[in-house]
């Protein structure tokens, strides 16, 4: 084959006209990802604040009031109701009116003043483990703080014997959007792009125009690249819009190099579009293409480290994550955007992602037979 990309110019000419002439398709390619991005960005916030709490206070003293104030002052809890019995406390939680129930027994202040362990019971709705864990941690911290203060007062010391001074690097305020939004970009980009190229090729199969292309001297590399480039442009446009939303709507600061961010995105989108082309070499109609694309997209939502840390996964899912382009993209985004990683720090991941992109593209071009049937 003397000219490996023969026919590329013709395919580009046609694809750009087809894409640009149909503003509705373009709109529906670009618009839903932006909505998804905003929706995901707001929904995926596990900074739990003002958790509903019911109280059954049998003590009714200044000390018990102070304990309640400590709960409210953390901003993790808000008292929605005070009830008159332990049964009512439990039923409020069961009914879903509150996540937590605090029961302060009548002898709480008496025990406290007498130097005996003063106990209060905390009921936590464990059905949402994230929320429950945070409620537990906060409540334990409240008790510890108060205990420490009391002990310091009694011992006459001014400082605690051991102190940890934490310093949060890269996301000092521990905002959820900073962690989630770069990942959301990875997922949203995948949904928009993988379908696009898969559909673009399968549609030609369905219409019979592919057969017409196959009788011409068009090369398969020319065809594949010609299908990919227009959607690469759209994918990058989409990525810029998503980065814009990330920065200006969710106020995620970009610590690293914007050039590196764009480069990683370009490689990632290229890999996804190649994946779409790979789907198209197998799928015979749009329905099959849709189902096959979903089969690739779903695992990357769960196993890429987008929500759940990969390190805690069983080895098989950890391994599955290691072959997904999304895993590397999300890692790269967090490294570049949040940690401001430098070239040699993110190079290994970028290298793997680039290798994947090239490999996927070669596989789909080689798998694509210039034959039918």
């Amino acid at each position: 084959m003397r000219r490996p990309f023969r026919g590329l110019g013709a395919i580009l000419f046609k694809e750009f006209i087809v894409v640009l002439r149909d503003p509705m398709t373009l709109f529906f390619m670009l618009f839903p990802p932006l909505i998804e991005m905003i929706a995901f960005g707001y929904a995926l916030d596990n900074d739990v604040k003002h958790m509903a709490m019911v109280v059954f206070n049998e003590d009714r003293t200044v000390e018990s009031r102070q304990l309640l104030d400590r709960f409210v002052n953390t901003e993790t809890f808000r008292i929605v109701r005070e009830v008159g019995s332990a049964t009512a406390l439990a039923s409020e939680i069961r009914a879903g009116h509150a996540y937590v129930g605090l029961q302060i027994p009548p002898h709480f202040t008496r025990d406290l003043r007498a130097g005996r362990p003063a106990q209060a019971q905390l009921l936590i709705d464990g059905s949402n483990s994230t929320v429950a864990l945070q409620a537990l941690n906060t409540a334990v911290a409240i008790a510890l703080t108060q205990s420490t203060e009391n002990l310091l007062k009694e011992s006459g010391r001014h400082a605690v014997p051991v102190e940890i001074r934490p310093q949060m690097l890269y996301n000092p305020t521990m905002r959820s959007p900073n962690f989630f939004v770069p990942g959301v970009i990875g997922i949203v980009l995948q949904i928009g792009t993988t379908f696009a190229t898969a559909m673009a090729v399968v549609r030609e199969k369905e219409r019979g125009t592919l057969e017409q292309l196959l009788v011409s001297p068009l090369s398969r590399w020319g065809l594949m690249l010609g299908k990919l480039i227009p959607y690469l442009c759209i994918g990058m446009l989409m990525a810029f819009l998503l980065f814009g939303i990330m920065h200006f709507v969710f106020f995620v600061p970009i610590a690293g190099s914007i050039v590196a961010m764009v480069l990683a995105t370009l490689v990632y989108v290229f890999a996804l579009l190649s994946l779409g082309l790979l789907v198209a070499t197998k799928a015979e109609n749009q329905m099959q293409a849709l189902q096959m694309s979903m089969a690739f997209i779903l695992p990357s939502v769960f196993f890429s480290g987008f929500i759940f840390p990969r390190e805690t996964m069983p080895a098989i899912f950890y391994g599955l994550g290691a072959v997904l382009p999304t895993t590397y993209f999300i890692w790269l985004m967090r490294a570049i955007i949040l940690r401001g990683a430098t070239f040699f720090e993110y190079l290994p991941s970028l290298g793997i992602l680039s290798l994947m992109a090239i490999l996927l593209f070669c596989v789909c071009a080689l798998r694509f037979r210039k034959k039918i049937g």
Partner: protein
Amino acid sequence: MNQESRDAMIECDGLTKRFGSFTAVDHVSFSVARGSIFGFLGPNGSGKSTVIRMLCGILEPTDGRARIGGRDVLREGEAIKEMIGYMSQKFSLYDELTVNENLLFSGKLYSLRDRDLKKRRDELIALTHLEPYLNRRAAHLSGGWRQRLAMACALMHQPTVLFLDEPTAGIDPVARRELWDLLFEFAGRGMTLFVTTHYMDEAERCSHVGYIHMSKLIVSGQPDDLKQLPEVTPTGTRRLDVTCDHVTQALQAMRSVEGVRSATVFGQSMHLLVDDAITRADIEKKLLGVGIQRAEIHVIGPSLEDVFVALTAKYANENQGEKAA
């Protein structure tokens, strides 16, 4: 190598295609001379499109070989692609593109340079009279114009062999006639045309025809030669055209006559295949019996349809004989 095979543009030798246990094309052999119009006939699903696809190099034959312009379809597929044009059954066009853009796209696919591209486009527009529709999207063209555009697209790179898969299916008679006029013009310029069709009148216009039935090529040759085949008009029989009133009743009457081998209605007349023993007087007498006073009777030659009907029946009989044996 004799004269005929040196001039052959398309040659098939035992071409076979099997899909699993189904044999779509079964040892088909024929050759098409340069500059001729080869009409390829056969019922739906008989393997016509499969043969075309193998000749165009987009479907791999299971067995046998095919050559176009002396080049092997399997080994020199890419070189063949430069010299062939293909117009599929669906008139595969890009609906989103205008007529002009579809033409330019087709030319670019074959790496035509800008100047040649425009020149060639203008020639084809003049030939197909597409100029009023240049900026109309292909989606908004009627069947006849889509067909013209599809053909113009297939011709952008000046192929020496043009394959047309049922080019006149679903097209009005005027467009159909005009298409054939164009095909004759191309053939006159030395282009070789391979056309599949269902229409017998189109087959009559071809310089060569082939008839495929149940994946097997039953016959191929020049229409006039085929009509002379002894199987078509067996010895001791002749074909008659009988024009009379009440053709349907006449048909019933004639079918009951011993010595009348077949009777078919053609518009206002009927075609009979009769034993030589049957005279005009016999026929007139029989018709008078059902109240038909006047009838014009002529001896006629077989039509291509007669040829195909006779050969299909013969083939079916032989096959049955084979199975029984």
